[in-house]
């Protein structure tokens, strides 16, 4: 296990609101982190700050023990791969072109994608169940299929830390499970790390060994999911009652279906 991302006294705010205050976080290879919190609590803002898409208010962010700002942006993109929450594509392009975009940080300025890059792109598409979609135009795909193209692009980028903002958006249940399995296994078996914003607590409990609870008032709790995922924390996090159930595959968190606090 080696340390990939570390924060020291990180304070992040957006639009006059504090997302986190003095956060100390250590993400090492093999770890899977889920970021949980209600709408508007700043999960995406925090993810973007950690991956370098926006600046922190104060505090330090270290990637592989080196200050984030000291990394050349392309070198950083080989280590941190970010999946954005949503993606719109005004220009038409093919699926394979879109996935190959992920190779950008690995290629020198005048270098074209090699046969190996293409093999990686095809393999990434196969991993998200999009075999033989290479030549399809992006615009002809469904929302869930396009989401999986974006996931394939991050796979193709081949980073050490996958930072995924709601990776299961638009996916059907089968593909939600297979995508989360895929990334969790990559983190566990290939010494990568996974940091993902999720809305499904059961998935967080099942696939992640750590959680970041973003309460939205500046308080953030970070730690092992076994300790932090309890009824009291989750009720406070969502302002909603969640029941802890025993399912055939482990713990399941079921929200109370009638309106109650």
């Amino acid at each position: 296990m080696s340390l990939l991302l570390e924060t020291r006294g990180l304070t992040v705010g957006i639009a006059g609101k504090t997302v986190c205050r003095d956060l100390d976080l250590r993400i090492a290879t093999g770890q899977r982190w889920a970021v949980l919190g209600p709408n508007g609590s700043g999960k995406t803002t925090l993810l973007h700050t950690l991956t370098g898409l926006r600046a922190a208010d104060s505090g330090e962010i270290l990637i592989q023990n080196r200050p984030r700002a000291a990394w050349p942006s392309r070198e950083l993109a080989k280590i941190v791969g970010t999946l954005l929450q949503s993606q719109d594509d005004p220009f038409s392009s093919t699926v394979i072109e879109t996935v190959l975009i992920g190779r950008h940080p690995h290629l020198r300025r005048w270098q074209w994608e090699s046969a190996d890059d293409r093999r990686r792109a095809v393999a990434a598409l196969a991993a998200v169940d999009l075999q033989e979609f290479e030549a399809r135009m992006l615009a002809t795909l469904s929302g869930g299929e396009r989401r999986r193209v974006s996931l394939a692009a991050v796979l193709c980028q081949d980073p050490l830390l996958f930072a995924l903002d709601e990776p299961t958006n638009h996916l059907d249940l089968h593909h939600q499970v297979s995508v989360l399995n895929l990334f969790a296994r990559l983190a566990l078996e290939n010494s990568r790390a996974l940091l993902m914003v999720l809305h499904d607590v059961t998935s967080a409990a099942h696939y992640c060994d750590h959680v970041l609870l973003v309460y939205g008032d500046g308080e953030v709790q970070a730690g092992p999911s076994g300790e932090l995922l309890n009824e009291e924390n989750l009720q406070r996090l969502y302002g909603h009652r969640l029941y802890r159930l025993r399912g055939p595959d482990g713990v399941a968190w079921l929200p109370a279906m009638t309106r109650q606090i």
Partner: protein
Amino acid sequence: MIRPQPLLLGLLLLSGVSLAAALLIGSVAVSPGTVWTVLWGGGDALQRAVLLELRLPRALSAFAVGGLLALAGALMQVLLRNPLADPYILGVSGGAAVFTLTAMLLGASGALLSGAAFGGALFTMLLVFALARRQGSWTPVRLLLTGVVIASGWAALIGFILAVSPDTTLRGMLFWLMGDLEFAARPYSAWAVLAAGLAVALVLARDLNVLARGDLQARALGVPVGVLFPLLYVGASLLTAAAVTLAGTVGFIGLIVPHLLRLVAGGDHRVLLPGAVLLGGSLLTAADTLARTVIAPQQLPVGVITALLGVPVFLYLLNRRGG
């Protein structure tokens, strides 16, 4: 989808054919053999005058303007992430038009008009840049809105100038506004701008592929968006300024050529950008040859031809591919 190599080779061939046609076709019949002789320093005085002083500079001007506009359009579309963007959308041509028409109204001609056009284009570029940047960072949407509003302002001023101009200058003004190559005799600076612009654009081509997916996505993949945005804006504006200075506001090429290429060859800017220069240049050269021959001796503004030919071709391709 056409592969890159056959596409670019085909476009090179098309460029050669369009330039050759521009030299051969016209009121004075010239044989291919004569063109060859004249280009290598032979031929009689009349042939030399027609080819070297009239047709060749005009063909080269048309090609350069077409290439500049197509390249500027392709860059502007990525910058604004809007497939409907054209080189004129941010008001660069409007500023050039207001300055040029004012100069025409004051009786200027020749190099003074070119100077006015370039000055107006540059002035607009800086104005929009400054206004769009006022609150720190600028977004494509903010830039687009600022530019579109400035362009509307220029359009109003153009209307005003046309309304107060005497009939004798109106015709020249209208030709300039529709795009006209009749007085485009010195294409050399436009070629220099085109060559420099294409060279820079090719260096950045793969970054543009990433930027087409959004500035946040581009930054996540290590593209220095903060440098790339102003560079694209200034680059596309200068290309447009060079084109407008030479030929007025030739419409359609800058919007349609990048689209045509996206439809037939995909969205890779490493192919799209050189392809746009070749196709834009060829199309405008061919259109200008038509413009000066189709109802000869009367000449048409070339912008009329580009639109008349471009609209059906584009609609055909769009429908064939089902959008």
